[in-house]
């Protein structure tokens, strides 16, 4: 049962190890720019959701950055599949689709959690106080699981590279900008609010922000995250089960 998980992780982590410095450097830049531009730029004059803006922003950057990293395995799986045919090596082995899916998801979670640590370091540097509770751990695990599952699903159902870029442009980027990363969603016009409350990132952001800043964590939202994660996990499983190359 574990050979597939071990195999996928062995490959992903060894490839990651060789590029780690470049990858970490690249993924650390954009959150830093946001912090400098919005955190320092707005300073104390802006209050969002009852918090100093920089305190509001950091949890948003955590969800955004970990989403980018976790969901980002989509692109990597894609290149591995279409350019290098690496999936053939998994598919001829005596391992089931569930093992392959779990291997990829764990890798996505690893990347997501690594970027979370990075933002915590920024929080220290910008001396923003955060509360790290078990509830935070639970929610970041669900969050990275959710978006790794989504990334795996997308990577398996699309037919080529172009469609990957399309999904990123029309789904992922708008989601990152609208779902409470940079401002509270409650200020959005009604129509947008409807849209935003259909997207899973909204709940991740609310739960993670509340857990880090001492707000009240909605169990209902947490349950919704679990629901989304389950759905995407199942779609990822189905997609890998029927994939032929």
């Amino acid at each position: 049962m574990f050979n597939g998980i071990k195999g996928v992780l062995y490959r992903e982590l060894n490839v990651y190890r060789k590029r780690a410095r470049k990858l970490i450097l690249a993924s650390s830049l954009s959150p830093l720019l946001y912090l400098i531009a919005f955190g320092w730029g707005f300073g104390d004059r802006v209050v969002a959701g009852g918090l100093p803006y920089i305190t509001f922003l950091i949890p948003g950057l955590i969800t955004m950055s970990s989403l980018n990293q976790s969901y980002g395995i989509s692109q990597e799986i894609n290149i591995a599949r279409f350019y290098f045919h690496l999936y053939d090596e998994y598919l001829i082995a005596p391992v089931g689709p569930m093992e392959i899916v779990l291997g990829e998801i764990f890798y996505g979670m690893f990347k997501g959690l690594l970027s979370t640590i990075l933002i915590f370091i920024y929080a220290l540097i910008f001396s923003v106080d955060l509360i790290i509770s078990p509830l935070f751990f639970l929610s970041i695990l669900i969050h990275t699981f959710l978006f790794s599952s989504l990334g795996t699903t997308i990577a398996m159902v699309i037919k080529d590279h172009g469609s990957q870029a399309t999904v990123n442009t029309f789904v992922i980027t708008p989601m990152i900008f609208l779902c409470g990363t940079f401002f509270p969603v409650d200020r959005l016009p009604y129509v947008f609010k409807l849209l935003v409350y259909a997207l899973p990132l909204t709940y991740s952001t609310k739960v993670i922000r509340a857990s880090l800043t001492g707000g009240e964590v909605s169990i209902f939202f947490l349950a919704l995250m679990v629901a989304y994660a389950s759905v995407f996990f199942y779609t990822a499983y189905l997609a890998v089960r029927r994939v032929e190359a």
Partner: protein
Amino acid sequence: MMKELLEVRGLVRRFGKKTAVAGIDFTLEEGAFVGLLGPNGAGKTTTIRMLTGLYKPTSGSVRYYGRDFFSNQKGIKGNIGVVHQYSNLDRDLTAFENLNLHCILHGIPRSERKKRIEEALEFAGLAEHRNHQIKTFSGGMKRRLVIVRALLHEPRILFLDEPTVGLDPQIRRSLWDLIVKVNQVKSMAILLTTHYIEEAERLCKRVMIINEGKIIADAPPEELKKDLGRFVLEVFHEDGIEERLFQSKEEALEALKGCRETCKIREVTLEDVFLNLTGRRINV
């Protein structure tokens, strides 16, 4: 009597309206060395991919040792080794790491992995390149590596999809030696696809000719050629080459005497067999 390893019955695969494999039947014994010879687009790759669990057939059955493949995939896959038409090594990993990945996926115990990998690298003549990234490998080296990688879990049958396509003649020959060694030293059954006549004739003890998704002939190469005649007289006319078949060299030489255009005698090949069966050439 040899034990039956693989039995294929009525295997069909369609892609939309296109029928890539149109119902093929054959059986394979332990230790066999069989070629699947046919032009590009004949359905060779699609066949191999169905026999190794990568494509689901539209209909038909595949049995290994009498067990249905598609309902026992996990149990049976350990008996199968595959070398694809393209090299699917990870460019960023080293030779050792690529082989190690294969060992992990096939559940080879950690204590045995190193020994098997070193052996495989030795067998392929790549021992010094153990810790080099695949990026630095030539086409021939990658081919050798994917072949020994497919053997790491000690399968009973090895599928090779056009193993020498796109390689220099010299490298092709060295790969042939490696493949023959696998069949003889490891007494592993081999099913090799190719569109190179010479490869099928020289290597395979039995050749199945595939065209438009159907197997149209299945016998040892000598037998396939025998029915046709043994020698060909090629007559070069202004508008093309005429080929006349003869049972003996003497008859062919006799005909050569009366030849007024440029003429040439050569032995019959599987290309002639294919031409005779289909009216087309394998390689155009």
